């Protein structure tokens, strides 16, 4: 780029690098940088809730099973996953605080306008969920010896409940931004709540909530399953590894098909309220008056308005979306071009999510088959596949969020407020500098966290704390297991 293009001629050639830098900043205006920053920080953040929602429920189940069956294996697993939960939860908290302030720093016009509607929902999230989680987290992590097992179980249950309540409110907010309802607009351009029931239970909220909570449970199940499978392959702590692997595979077998059904229902809801998003997901640039094909793969070409090298199944898209082979399906040609979402991103992220969903179903069915044949604990092929699939949930969750968030573009509040009109009156260098800072800090901090979590998972599930009242402990049902908690600890070392 010529220096003259930038506007301020430099007297010294030494000044060239800083001119270059400002030229780069001009290529990325504040809106683009703020969008990159939001996408980056929210993508990092969503990983942790997706994991901690599922893990908190899993911990509550483990502790309940321990209290009920008095089998030490559940307490051992509880203590094992509790530590991992604590690390993941810490990362979720700090990345979440960033989110709660980013609305104000980078998206202040959006905050001013949408604050009266979404602010109270987020306020309720803090009041009903965050405090509950944070208040009882300390008791859950540190308090077993101080409050006894029953109150401790109550604390664990409250932490799990808190994560679910949190998901409910945040999905109400997100769904309202996707399918806004129950509001009016005042003379200052602010969205004013008219009917809170309609705001919260907006048309897409139930679908999104179910889809996300199931996704969180599946994500956690695949991490737990991978960890169990890895220990089964290494033949360390076989009883604990078997227990967690079996529990995780039940989850996969039962929840994966429910999730595929829920996702399909969510898709139909999206077609009704955000048709442009579905057109982008399906790659339908053109309308299909007599039945639309399902494009399995291809390269969306937004310049030419077609999908290159498309692999299509005739009529199937109409069958899935309209339940009739010849049903007409509108394409992006019915929508003004400046209102198109970025097709290629949505098209691909949607396929990644769906492919992983079916792979999860496949692993779940495979595990059922092995279970029936009695080879669940011994099939090395299944265990290897489960280890390989361990991170699949995270990828699917990210791909799903990319589909829904990018598919909503160019709006922040669908149909009402453009992303370009939501930005703070902020200079690009400020957003750019903070973006660079966040990228460096996140990779350092969350990279270290991921490393520590992986190392924790690679270690043996820990011994039961010796000072606890052990009581009469059952020997394990199927295989002759350890008779007491302490022996259980030694077993497998």
């Amino acid at each position, binding site marked *: 780029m010529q220096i003259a293009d930038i506007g301020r001629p430099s007297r010294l050639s030494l000044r060239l690098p800083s001119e270059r830098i400002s030229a780069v900043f001009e290529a990325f205006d504040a809106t683009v940088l703020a969008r990159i920053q939001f996408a980056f920080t929210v993508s990092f953040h969503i990983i942790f809730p997706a994991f901690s929602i599922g893990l908190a429920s899993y911990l509550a189940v483990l502790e309940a099973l321990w209290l009920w069956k008095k089998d030490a294996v559940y307490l051992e697993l509880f203590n094992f996953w509790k530590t991992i939960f604590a690390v993941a939860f810490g990362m979720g908290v700090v990345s979440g605080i960033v989110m709660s302030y980013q609305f*104000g720093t980078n998206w202040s016009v959006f905050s001013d306008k949408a604050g009266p509607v979404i602010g109270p929902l987020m306020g309720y999230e803090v009041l009903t969920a965050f405090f509950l989680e944070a208040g009882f987290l300390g008791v859950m992590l540190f308090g077993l010896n101080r409050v006894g097992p029953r109150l401790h179980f109550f604390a664990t249950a409250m932490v799990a409940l808190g994560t679910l309540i949190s998901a409910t409110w945040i999905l109400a907010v997100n769904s309202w931004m996707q399918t806004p309802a129950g509001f009016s607009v005042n003379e200052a351009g602010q969205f004013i709540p008219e009917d809170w029931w309609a705001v919260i239970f907006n048309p897409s909220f139930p679908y999104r909530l179910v889809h996300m909570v199931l996704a969180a449970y599946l994500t956690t199940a695949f991490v737990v399953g991978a960890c169990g499978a890895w220990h089964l392959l290494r033949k360390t702590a076989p009883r604990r590894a078997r227990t967690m692997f079996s529990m995780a595979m039940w989850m996969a077998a039962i929840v994966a098909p429910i999730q595929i059904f829920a996702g399909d229902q969510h898709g139909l809801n999206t077609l009704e309220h955000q048709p442009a998003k579905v057109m982008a997901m399906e790659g339908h640039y053109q309308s299909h008056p007599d039945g639309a094909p399902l494009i399995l793969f291809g390269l969306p070409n937004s310049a030419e308005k077609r999908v290159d090298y498309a692999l299509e199944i005739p009529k199937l898209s109409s069958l899935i979306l309209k339940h009739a082979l010849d049903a007409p399906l509108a394409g992006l040609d019915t929508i003004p071009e400046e209102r198109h979402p970025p097709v290629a991103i949505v098209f691909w992220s949607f396929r990644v999510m769906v492919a992983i969903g079916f792979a999860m179903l496949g692993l779940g069915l495979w595990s059922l088959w092995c279970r029936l044949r009695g080879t669940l604990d011994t099939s090395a092929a299944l265990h290897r596949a489960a280890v390989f699939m361990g991170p699949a949930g995270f990828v699917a969750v990210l791909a799903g969020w990319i589909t829904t968030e990018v598919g909503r573009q160019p709006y922040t509040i669908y149909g009402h407020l453009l992303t370009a009109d939501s930005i703070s009156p902020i200079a690009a260098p400020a957003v750019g500098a903070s973006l660079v800072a966040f990228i460096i800090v996140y990779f350092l901090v969350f990279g270290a966290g991921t490393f*520590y979590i992986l190392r924790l998972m690679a270690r043996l599930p820990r011994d039961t704390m010796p000072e606890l009242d052990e009581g009469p402990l059952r020997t394990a049902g199927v295989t002759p297991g350890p008779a007491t908690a302490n022996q259980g600890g030694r077993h497998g070392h």
Partner: protein
Amino acid sequence: MAIDLPLIWAAIIAFAVLAYVVLDGFDLGVGILFPFFREKHDRDVMMNSVAPVWDGNETWLVLGGGGLLAVFPLAYATVLPALYAPIVAMLIGLIFRGVAFEYRWRTQRGEFLWNWAFAGGSMLAAFAQGLALGALVQGIPVENRAYAGGWWDWLTPFSIVTGLAIVIGYALLGATWLVMKTRGELAERARGIALRTALATVAAMGIVSLWTPFLEPVYLERWFGWPTAIFSVVVPLLVLGCLYLLLKGIRDRHDVQPFVAALGLFVLGYIGIGISFFPFMVPPSLTIWDAAAPDESLAFLLVGALVLVPMILAYTAYAYWVFRGKVDPEEGYH
């Protein structure tokens, strides 16, 4: 409507921010004091003294920010861009110190890194909060529902002084917390630090208080005009009273009194700022009523807040009760 909802909400938000300042203040303070304690054992005990509660403490900051978005969206939308750099710095500081609570126990080779992250993050977060406070006190211009100042307006001698004052004040809270929660040599050293930071805190409060009225004519009038001049007599007297109780508590080797007296100092400083501010939300541009969301939003969240805030206070108090008394060095779940 007969009930002044914006005023009620201003009081609730003010309470949330005060709760944040005193609660996270002491656990940030523990981080700020880390460099003064070199023994690994001391640092383990210090960290374990706040580990069960820091997360709940920080939630008040989320309530402050989230609540501001909910009930004073215009204040949120103008203050945060104005304080862009200090806010980002605070967030980065909180990230480092927050994860240090868990990471520090997961490594031996890297422990020094997370010691740095904890201490440095705590200092950065505290200093950034002080900068933000100073910038808010010196005023934020608003035009057409948007911030109308420059990007470095927050950086002034005054805001740097308030930043340092907050770091010193949090260090005092941290030191008196350690006096209360620890034993032996660690508590002894904390007592010594508490003594010095107590004097430094009151000195810093004095400098900031004498400087503030000259930033805005409104503040000067508020403090030295009649009848509000009563405050400018009473508040400093109460501050001196708290200082006396604090020093006496340290000298007589009380465990709890120094901490409570230090909290008192913070509450008084906060009340002082409130006296200067009222009725502004964003001085000198937006009053509480300018910045408020419509009554529909205020009423909807108020119903929940009136039920939930007492519940939160109750179970937070319970969590503190569970972990009452001196920290047992052998304890911790790690």
